[in-house]
């Protein structure tokens, strides 16, 4: 366990907090849209801007935490500067707090997804620069092969974050230029940069959890990220069809959007392939939750983002469905469905590395995952029907938008119901995470200097096994055997280690646990 990994906990925790908040805000917005006279405490305009900004920032924060957690593991070395990890967190967290606060107070730049005022956008760009600086210096000094796929994908993803954000710090006089710039964040960030980072992180996670051999997935990762680059950047064209650009964008956007199915399929193939290396039933509860969240992400990657996106990007169809609730369905399924679930999986894995989640809590986790999936699907289907009818009433038979809104109201009610179910899931999961992390909150926010210098991976592993032992009665024997092996390794390490002073505490600790497990065994016998 690296110290950089300790420092990334707070990112994961903050991502969970924002995810919980999102469920609440979005439900409020859905109700406000249906019943405009209710008198929502937050004006609809501010609420929607709030919702959109969280939807961009929370996956970003989670992914940044994931980079700090997995990159050092893949590079087999600490980050260049540990202090910068903490500094970067507080920069990003305060920037987001200021953005959300200013939106509630009515400071709105008036560009969808990019509502923050320019100084705060500059601060966001600065956060990505700090990340890249730390990442690149670490990458260059690493002893691992420079061409390792996971390292390459995380580095490329992070660098492109800056590249495509910078044009959006200012807004332009011509609305067409505004739109061109906007989709560099709304499309390229999500479907290229975060996709690259996500693939790298996911591969690192699968290598760790399922023990799949690195060589077996390396080529697949390269294939995936090459497709993601090729398709991701130029597929931005499907957002440019009707904004006042030359007509060759229809061809460009259409062709490359069709290609976007490829990385999704390769990613699915890689994941499934790596999963066959291990029996699912042997996995710990934590890994089961992580994998089921990854599975949810894969499902929406193929259906919500992949196939739905594929049909929508076909220009003659797009002409009619563009700018309706169908787009809204697609963005919910693709943005939360793919990246939301992925970030949830990774952050869950990160947060419960050292802290053990009690067994009874897992039942609630399963419930929450069920509610999230059910809610998202209901929401997606409600929006798809509403959008389909909107196309018919508005674009086919030519009713006014007001009349159309009245006619599709019942389906927006289904959406609100789905949103409500989703909010139950998001609040439950966030509550479980925060409740179980809270007793250790000081450890999460510990500064880098105070974290132990030792590589105590085995010790943490053992701590986890003992924790599981106390919960699992049936599997007690194989677990005890694993603990025995770990003990021997630790004792061996202990003899080798010259810094005995540092190890004294740990020896006492391990002896204590050994005593406990012996007694446990006796009781069992």
């Amino acid at each position, binding site marked *: 366990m690296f110290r950089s990994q300790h420092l990334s906990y707070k990112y994961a925790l903050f991502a969970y907090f924002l995810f919980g908040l999102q469920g609440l805000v979005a439900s409020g917005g859905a109700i406000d849209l249906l019943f405009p*006279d209710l008198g929502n405490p937050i004006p609809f305009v501010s609420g929607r*801007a709030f919702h959109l900004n969280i939807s961009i920032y929370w996956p970003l924060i989670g992914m940044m935490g994931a980079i700090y957690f997995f990159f050092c593991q893949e590079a087999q070395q600490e980050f260049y500067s540990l202090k910068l990890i903490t500094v970067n967190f507080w920069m990003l967290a305060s920037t987001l707090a200021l953005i959300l606060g200013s939106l509630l107070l009515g400071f709105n730049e008036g560009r969808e997804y990019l509502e923050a005022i320019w100084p705060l956008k500059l601060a966001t760009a600065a956060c990505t620069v700090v990340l890249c600086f730390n990442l690149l210096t670490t990458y260059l000094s690493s002893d691992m092969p420079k061409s390792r796929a996971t390292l390459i994908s995380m580095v490329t993803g992070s660098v492109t974050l800056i590249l495509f954000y910078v044009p959006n710090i200012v807004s332009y006089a011509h609305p*067409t230029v505004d739109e061109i710039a906007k989709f560099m964040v709304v499309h390229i960030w999500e479907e290229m940069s975060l996709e690259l980072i996500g693939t790298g992180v996911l591969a690192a996670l699968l290598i760790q959890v399922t023990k799949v051999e690195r060589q077996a997935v390396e080529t697949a990762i390269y294939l995936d990220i090459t497709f993601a680059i*090729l398709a991701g950047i130029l597929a931005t064209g499907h957002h440019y069809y009707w904004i006042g650009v030359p007509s060759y964008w229809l061809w460009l956007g259409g062709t490359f959007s069709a290609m976007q199915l490829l990385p999704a399929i390769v990613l699915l193939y890689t994941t499934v392939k790596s999963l066959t290396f291990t029996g699912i039933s042997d996995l710990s509860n934590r890994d089961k939750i992580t994998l089921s969240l990854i599975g949810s992400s894969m499902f929406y990657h193929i259906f919500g983002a992949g196939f739905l996106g594929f049909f929508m990007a076909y220009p003659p169809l797009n002409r009619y469905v563009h700018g309706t609730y169908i787009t809204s369905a697609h963005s919910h399924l693709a943005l939360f469905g793919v990246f939301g679930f992925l970030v949830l999986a990774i952050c869950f894995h990160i947060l419960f590395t050292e802290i053990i989640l009690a067994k009874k809590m897992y039942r609630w986790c399963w419930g929450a995952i069920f509610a999230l999936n059910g809610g998202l699907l209901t929401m997606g289907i409600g929006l798809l029907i509403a959008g389909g009818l909107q196309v018919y009433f508005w674009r086919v038979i030519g009713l006014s938008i007001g009349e159309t809104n009245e006619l599709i109201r019942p389906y927006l009610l289904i959406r609100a119901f789905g949103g409500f179910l989703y909010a139950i899931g998001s609040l439950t999961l966030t509550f479980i995470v925060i409740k179980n992390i809270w007793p250790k909150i000081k450890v999460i926010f510990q500064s880098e200097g105070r974290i132990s210098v030792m590589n105590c991976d085995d010790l943490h592993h053992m701590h986890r096994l003992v924790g599981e032992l106390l919960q699992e009665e049936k599997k007690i024997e194989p677990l005890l055997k694993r603990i025995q092996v770990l003990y021997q390794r630790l004792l061996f390490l202990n003899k080798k280690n010259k810094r005995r002073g540092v190890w004294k505490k740990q020896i006492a600790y391990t002896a204590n646990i050994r005593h406990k497990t012996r007694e446990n065994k006796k009781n069992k016998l």
Partner: protein
Amino acid sequence: MQFRLKIFLAAIFFSVALFSFVIYDSIAGNLSNVPSEAVKGKIVFQKKACIECHTIFGNGGYYGGDLTKVYEKFGSDGLREYLTNPPLLSGAKKKQHIYVNHEEAEEMIDYFRFLQSIPNMGWPPRPVFDKKKDSE
């Protein structure tokens, strides 16, 4: 350097280069200058955060309808009346459309007039049944 890494780097170079070139081509020489009144109108449009409910070129909020060709539909007088005497929102009994003062309304009308003049391949599509009526 490994072969697959070379391919990956080539893919990045190719995509970024092509993307930059087509964007340059789409902006330089293709876009008309924005009249200064329309720029003012765009600032009002952004300040009032209209994009949260309405779409421009189909991008924005899906509740209020698209404003790309709104000038063609209502004309200056209709828009001025709508913005300065806001009616109730659809489905609402109390909540009105946002109010815009006369000066701002004029600027926004200039912006809508400019928006309408942007050649965007005829989007949004005219309703299918309207088209039939025209051809008859």
